[in-house]
């Protein structure tokens, strides 16, 4: 690796913040190397990244939470220290986050307005939670509906990061019958770049990576059709699952406590959604790389996928029907019978009419007139 130069420490930059916290250049470079790996960038980029981040001004970030469970914030803040996550969060200027900030009420809202004014067009907007469209009163902050606050804050944002499946896809609040009329950020904001970081909750390091990318390159990473960073959501859980060899050999656990389950066989038959779920759990894992759900013996529930909440029972294999239709079949048969009775009635009248039109035949009638 090229030996990067010690970046100059400029006031108000990330570099200054790092220096104040006593983070050595070596440590910072290590962080950047990890990030480039996560972002699937060539390792040689680490130096450039370190330099870019050091020189970058501390990015103003406004974090809005709507219909959510705070799981996403928990996911990030509960990470053990010292972590990449903490570092990065310390390096930004989190100007508004109603769970984390000390200020409340008027002061809090004022902080948001101030940040929007000071950094117009440059601040990063992070959203977690879905937006209720059914009734503005379903969810408000300081008397402002989620929708109004989102639209107002989005206007001056450089980009939006929709964190968690709720913000990215509507999430659990959107589950059938979707009582609040929940929608995702992307459903209503159409004129800003949006990075979806789904997951219920998302993996902390994935968020960090996205932020680092933004800080380094001043733009958004390469996204897939659903607005997710390809570097984290490019493969399915199943593609990287360590139980995959069992799957390929057709070795499946039938129950959670059978011998096969103890042997760590594949959880497909127990409803694992890994094959259709695009996320990085199997590689990054959770809790400082300790484990991930499948490693703990439970199938993937597909939490980072849109509509995972309505994709059938969690413990039903993907090859099984979502719901039993036996009751519907009775109704269908009844409908078919009703139609059948109508057709039969029609057929019988056709036949009766033909019978009525039949005049007893005579031999003369065996020939045609012209014959």
């Amino acid at each position, binding site marked *: 690796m090229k030996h990067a130069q010690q970046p100059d420490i400029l006031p108000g930059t990330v570099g200054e913040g790092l220096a104040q916290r006593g983070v050595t250049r070596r440590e910072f470079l290590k962080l950047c190397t990890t990030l480039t790996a996560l972002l699937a960038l060539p390792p040689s980029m680490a130096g450039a990244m370190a330099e870019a981040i050091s020189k970058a001004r501390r990015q103003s970030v406004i974090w809005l939470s709507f219909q959510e469970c705070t799981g996403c914030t928990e996911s990030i803040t509960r990470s053990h220290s010292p972590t990449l996550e903490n570092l990065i969060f310390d390096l930004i200027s989190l100007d508004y986050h109603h769970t984390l900030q000390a200020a409340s009420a008027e002061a809090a809202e004022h902080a948001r307005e101030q940040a929007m004014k000071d950094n117009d067009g440059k601040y990063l907007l992070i959203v977690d939670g879905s937006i209720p469209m059914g009734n503005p009163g379903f969810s408000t902050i300081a008397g402002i509906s989620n929708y109004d606050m989102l639209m107002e804050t989005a206007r001056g944002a450089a980009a939006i990061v929709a964190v968690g499946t709720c913000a990215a896809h509507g999430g659990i609040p959107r589950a059938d019958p979707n009582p609040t009329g929940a929608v995702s950020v992307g459903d209503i904001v159409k004129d800003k770049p949006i990075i979806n970081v789904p997951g219920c909750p998302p993996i902390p390091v994935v968020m960090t990576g996205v932020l680092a990318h933004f800080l380094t390159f001043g733009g958004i990473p390469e996204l897939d059709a659903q607005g997710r960073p390809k570097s984290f959501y490019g493969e399915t859980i199943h593609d990287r699952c360590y139980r995959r060899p069992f799957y390929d050999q057709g070795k499946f656990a039938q129950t959670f406590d059978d011998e096969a389950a103890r042997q760590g066989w594949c959880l497909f038959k127990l409803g694992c959604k890994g094959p259709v779920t695009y996320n990085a759990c199997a590689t990054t894992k959770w809790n400082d790389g300790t484990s991930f759900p499948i490693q703990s013996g439970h199938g993937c529930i597909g939490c980072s996928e849109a509509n995972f909440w309505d994709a059938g029972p969690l413990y039903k294999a993907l090859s099984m029907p979502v719901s039993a239709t036996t009751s519907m079949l009775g109704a269908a048969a009844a409908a078919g019978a009703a*139609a059948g009775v109508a*057709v039969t009635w*029609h*057929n019988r009248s*056709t*036949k009766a*009419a*033909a*019978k009525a*039109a*039949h005049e*007893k*035949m*005579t*031999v*003369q*009638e*065996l*020939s*045609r*007139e012209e*014959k």
Partner: protein
Amino acid sequence: MSATLEKGINAFKEVIDAPIASFFSSCVRCGMCAEACLFYTETGEAKYTPIHKLEPLRRVWQQEYTLLGGLGKLLGLTRPVTDAELAEWEPLVYDSCTLCGRCSMICPVGNDITYMIRKMREGMAASGHAPQDMVAATTRAITIGSPMGVKWPAVQAQIKHVQADTGIEVPVEREGADYLVLMSSMEIINFPEYLSALSRIFKQAGISWTLAQDAFEATNSGIQIGASDLAGEIVGRIVVAAERLKVKCVISPECGHAYTALRWEGPNLMGRPFGFEVKHILEVLDELHKAGKLKTKGKDQRPLTYHDPCQIARRGGVVEQPRRLLSEVAADFREMSDAGVMNWCCGGGGGVSANSRADSLRLQAFKVKKSQIEATGVQTLITACANCRIVLEEGLEHNHMKVEVIGLTELLAEYLVEDNSTPVPSPAGGRGLG
């Protein structure tokens, strides 16, 4: 009054029933029925595929009696059946189908194609698309009383002849007799042996029987052409006579379709079950034989085989009887391949032999019979249908085959043990006029 397309289509609509709807629904277009039909196997022409002969009827079913077909018709997506089309189908429905029923035994999904062709002929006849010869035969059957124009005096002449030959009285118009005996025109004209054989057998068995002056003809052109109204009229004559003479049983002669007409279609044409029984002569002979009333002596030493007439075996259920009877009088009986209910048709049933337009096709179709007979190596062929017999004789002659055709009843009569043990002239030698 004349035949019209409307009447034809109307008849199609009348005849389509649940079996036909299920048959058309089930057809998988596998073409196996072709392999069962002698008109296809002997010509190799695809158009003779049995189910294809029903195409116009199928379309009427689809358009009139299915939901999707009806919608298609409303939207003008389906072609209606036209006169030109029926004219094109006429030779398929009449000339190339003997209603032999073989295809119905083969179709893997169980379609009774023969049943459908019989019904389809109703619409063909009503629309004026029946062959002229068959129209003429039916007209004679209705107006004269017999398709070949035979009248009672001709029968009387034969009765005289038989009485002179055998010395046995042929009873006529005998009320209270057990059996009413019918004949086919063919027998009256070409095979007088039948009546004489019967008189002798019945005499020996002590059976009370009679002929009826106004109901001697068993054949029914109305069935073959597919005109149920006319068929009913023809059957009605026999029913009236049987009821007038209070017989217990009507004996259908050695004629295939006459048996079908009377035994299976008769009550349905009349719209009521019969108060008397209907039996084919072979059934009666078999019963007499079982009861020990039909005694024969000696056996025919010639190698011989038996041709199962379609309407008697496959479409009539009389299969074992002829074999039991033959085992009494034949020393060297050889079964044909496919004998019994899978036997091949002579090629002339179902009105085909009455339709001169079909002559060359019929002779072509005869090839299968020819090879069947040749394989047995016999020169004597027994059968139990006068129509088969004429058709077989013609086919054999056409192929320069030296094979003699004999009615089973006559063969039996030849070996009959008679009480008065007077020598009897051999009836087996007589060839018909046809």
